[in-house]
């Protein structure tokens, strides 16, 4: 029997309500007494709000690492052994410099990958962690799942700026006359992206649906 649109509002039996536990790695269903999935070996975690502690911990670590990532320079450039001037560019400084040279398309890529995406991710994960498990309508749950999927998909793309710095520094090793050294911000930024990815991965999407009322209200 296929799902009709109005079926979405009907109550759905979940593994949790049936007194069972579903493996979040392979989907197998086990009695709650089991601690590990016997098929894939993954740990069986019940969908409750205690799991959010890991989300918050990684998220805060990511936010803390993001502060020095913006204050310190991403890279130090010495052109012609300092003759044409040295420059130290932070993330924002680098974007302004790109716009100054007229490469607006690249400036937009870096702006989105290094500023919009990380900050948007912090807000989105914090919001999801706050509302997860709270009462919601089916429509709200679908919105939350969409937000989670976008965060999960887009988070890795922030690494672009780290790769840019790595490639530019590598050019030095290729006999490039100017010398470019990665600054401390590159390491902080990479850590911030990694911590935020771990935060998103620790979020249990099943929590989004825990807050649904058992009996659907006719809306």
């Amino acid at each position: 029997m296929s799902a009709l649109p109005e079926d979405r509002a009907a109550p759905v039996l979940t593994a949790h309500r049936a007194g069972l536990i579903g493996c979040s790695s392979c989907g197998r269903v086990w009695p709650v007494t089991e601690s590990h999935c016997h098929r894939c070996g993954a740990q069986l975690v019940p969908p409750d709000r205690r799991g959010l502690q890991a989300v918050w911990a990684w998220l805060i670590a990511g936010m803390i690492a993001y502060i020095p990532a913006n204050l310190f320079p991403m890279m130090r450039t010495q052109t012609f052994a300092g003759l044409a001037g040295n420059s130290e560019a932070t993330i924002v400084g680098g974007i302004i410099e790109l716009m100054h040279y007229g490469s607006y398309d690249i400036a937009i890529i870096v702006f989105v990958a290094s500023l919009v995406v990380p900050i948007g991710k912090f807000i989105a994960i914090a919001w999801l962690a706050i509302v997860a498990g709270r009462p919601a309508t089916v429509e709200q749950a679908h919105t939350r799942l969409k937000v989670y999927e976008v965060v999960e998909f887009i988070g890795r793309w922030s690494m672009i700026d780290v790769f840019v710095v790595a490639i530019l520094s590598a050019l030095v090793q290729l006999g490039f006359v100017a010398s470019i050294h990665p600054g401390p911000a590159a390491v902080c930024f990479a850590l911030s992206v990694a911590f935020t990815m771990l935060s998103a991965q620790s979020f249990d999407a099943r929590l989004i649906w825990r807050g649904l009322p058992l009996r659907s209200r006719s809306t």
Partner: protein
Amino acid sequence: MRRGVYLQMMEHPPRYDLATGRGLVACPRCDALHLEEDLSPGETARCIRCGNVLAKPRAGAFAQLIALSFTSMVLLIGAIFFPFLEVSTFGFGNASSLFDVALAFSSGVLLPLVLAVLAMIIGLPILRSFLLLYTLVPLAQERPPYRYAATAFRWAEMLRPWSMAEIFVIGTAVALVKVAGLASVHLGPAFWAFCALIFVNLASRAFMCQTSIWDAIEDAGLATDDRAPTGPPAEAIPAPAPGPRS
């Protein structure tokens, strides 16, 4: 096409066991219970509540995934040793591979950063390809899977977001625009290997169906489900190439 079934609407109660969970599948995204069901290659089963893809078996998927993993391994190993970028400024010409770059950084303070970048663009993708081959080659040959097949496949899936070849390609493009005025940079074969890798990964993604692989590992005799010692329940989703029952 949705093949999910409400538990409340089921017509054949004996096919599942609500006390042990046998014959049931829980959506990893929303925990909704579904009945394990036969799917033909080409069909897609979606979660009845959140729409998450639960299974999408494709004909010949294992052979395709093996070929793609092998291709990806060859491309990555080539990408280590072939020149990645060639720079020429004022008559200085120099070609360098990622391996040379890594060596040049081997004593610097930024070694951890370089190692992390190399892990994300080379190490993890190679490891993932290896883990997939380890899991799938015996299954495709209808032999029992290797001993750690389940762990290997679980790790291969966990490492997926951390292998970032496609992001690296975009990063390289941005970097080249930044130095465009300062030196002339030519792209080497290793760069094109990374570009090819993007398409290999996309194809691999299209053929990947975790549920079919888990079921195949289970069917092919890895003793995992002690509730069903004679094999999986008859309604389990069969793998495209079912292994022999032991």
